[in-house]
């Protein structure tokens, strides 16, 4: 639980720092923050084994950190530096840490869901006991590929957990304006899959629900879906003025801040005391500072590497890439 508490804080502060660096122009492209969603992110990943593969969306800094990726490498990726976790080629939306079985963040809404189906298929194919988990949003739930994936997962009993992080908005569109049935987890029932809903602001609740889902997948090859209701405090991305959502709604949810709530629980149960809590914040502070300094100091990507990773078995060493066989 301490570990989860610390990771939640790491994500919170990492995201806040990323926002600052974006304003300073150190980070380009789109930047999607998960502030407010820490409980759902940390609770779900903590409930898995370290070698259980995961796929996620473009809002995935936290998933990488929760999986244990080095904050320095993640921040450097956001800066687009050679020391980034993807060598600066992916950026904020496309983090991956293969070593830690984090199979990446993807920018096409819904596009990463069937990949997890394949990760689960590979586990079953090799007779392993791993579980593949895919995180997606409430908006992604309306992509047809989710329905296709749930049907195949259930039909073939693949060890997959469909984790819907329902932060109640797809950009500026509230879930009830996008989904005829607000209880998104019900969709799993149409494919004979167990599904449940959990408070995404409560890290232990998420941990418990995903833990049970992972157990079913691991021991019974029974895929399932978990819907975690949470809320993102910031706009969709740094470029979103966030004028659509009512401020009282935001306040209502921020009043249930997952970090504050969890700290109260830990203090109450005597798992940690105030000093430890402060110590955690101090450690995290230092980590984030170090990450930003590392990214800042890192060298840019070598332009001669523009075409380096296009193919695993390339035929051409043209620095701009080429379809033509060299003479």
């Amino acid at each position: 639980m301490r570990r989860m508490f610390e990771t939640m804080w790491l994500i919170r502060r990492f995201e806040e720092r990323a926002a600052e660096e974006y304003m300073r122009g150190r980070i380009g492209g789109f930047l999607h923050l998960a502030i407010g969603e820490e409980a759902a992110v940390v609770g779900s990943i903590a409930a898995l084994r370290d070698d259980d593969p995961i796929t996620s969306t473009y809002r995935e800094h936290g998933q990488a950190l929760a999986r244990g990726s080095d904050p320095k490498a993640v921040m450097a990726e956001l800066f687009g530096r050679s020391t980034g976790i993807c060598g600066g080629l992916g950026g904020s939306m496309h983090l991956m840490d293969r070593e830690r079985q984090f199979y990446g963040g993807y920018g096409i809404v819904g596009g990463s869901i069937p990949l997890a189906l394949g990760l689960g298929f590979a586990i079953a194919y090799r007779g392993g006991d791993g579980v593949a988990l895919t995180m997606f949003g409430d908006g992604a739930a309306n992509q047809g590929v989710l329905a296709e994936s749930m049907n195949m997962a259930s039909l073939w009993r693949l060890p997959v957990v469909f984790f819907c992080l329902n932060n109640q908005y797809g950009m500026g569109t509230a879930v009830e304006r996008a989904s005829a049935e607000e209880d998104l987890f019900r969709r799993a029932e149409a494919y004979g899959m167990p599904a449940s809903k959990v408070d995404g602001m409560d890290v232990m609740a998420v941990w418990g629900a995903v833990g049970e889902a992972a157990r079913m997948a691991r021991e019974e090859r029974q895929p399932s879906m978990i819907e975690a209701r949470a809320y993102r405090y910031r706009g969709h991305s740094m470029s979103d003025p966030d004028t659509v959502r009512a401020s009282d709604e935001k306040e209502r949810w921020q009043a249930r801040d997952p970090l504050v709530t969890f700290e109260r629980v830990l203090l109450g149960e005597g798992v940690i005391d105030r000093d430890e809590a402060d110590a955690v914040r101090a450690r995290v502070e230092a980590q984030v500072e170090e990450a930003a300094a590392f990214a800042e100091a890192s060298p840019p990507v070598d332009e001669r590497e523009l075409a380096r990773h296009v193919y695993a078995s390339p035929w051409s060493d043209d620095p701009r890439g080429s379809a033509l066989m060299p003479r």
Partner: protein
Amino acid sequence: MTTAAPAQKKAISYREALNQAMREEMQRDPSVFVIGEDVAHYEGAFKVTRGLLREFGDQRVVDTPISEAGFVGLGIGAAMAGLRPIIELMTVNFSILALDQIVNNAAKVRYMFGGQVACPIVIRMPGGAGHQLAAQHSHSLEAWYTHVPGLKVVCPATPYDAKGLLKTAIRDDDPVIFLESEGLYAKKGPVGGPDDLVPFGRAAVRREGRDCTIVAASRMVWVALAAADLLAKEGIECDVIDPRTFRPLDLETLARRVRVTGRAVVVDEGWPECGIAANLATHLYEACFDWLDAPVARVGCADVPMPYARNLEQAALPQAETVAEAVRRLVRRGDR
């Protein structure tokens, strides 16, 4: 602009020009409606539909779930029933999810049903790269769409064309793929009035020069013009010709100028293989074979997925200097 029609005094942005076109056409024709992700309450990811919900209500400005295949199919069905949908796809990258609907239905229903129906639908979407959006969010799919008979493909470069071509697209009875450029939304310029339509298949001569003809559309027009400025300082005078629509294509105007200069450079933001540049070059070779002193030069995107790092992204994309260098090489070769 040689071909600019009587324009409004006030310069407005490409974004506002598109907004004006939709507003005017929606006022003019009640069968026109706008549908897409976040086009109503959010007023568009790039704010192109600003104010439309307020003015026309949620019957005619419809927010959709993130279901590209589904709502593009909806638009096609509505068009077959006689409505005139303007579908906004948040970016061209997401159109790939609706491509089956676009290519197998929108482009074919009229033909395969023997002309019984028309499909008057406009699919608007921004494309292109340059904002560090990386591999999945930086596509230029002009070539894919131009490949498909049954579609019309439009790529406006200026606010004037953005407005005039969109109005033409909305009134057109065929499916129109309307490719906007993310990098141009803030670009300002004059626009036409409510009745100033820009016809399809008429290239615009953005600049004239005797030494070399540069062909470019959409955002690349501005890169080409910047290159032409650089070259002018060196005494090299270039044409900059903007086809404005790839389907139909005004090859005549391009060829007429290439026959004069004897040199051509095609600039394209997309990938080189089976791309727009190869296509335009082929047409120019066929139309101007005996006039060309040298092969048509192609300046395009590197043959790689778009990288995130700023320096790599810039290296991958056509720049004024790379275009200028291509022209210089041609001119020098001519002087051999």
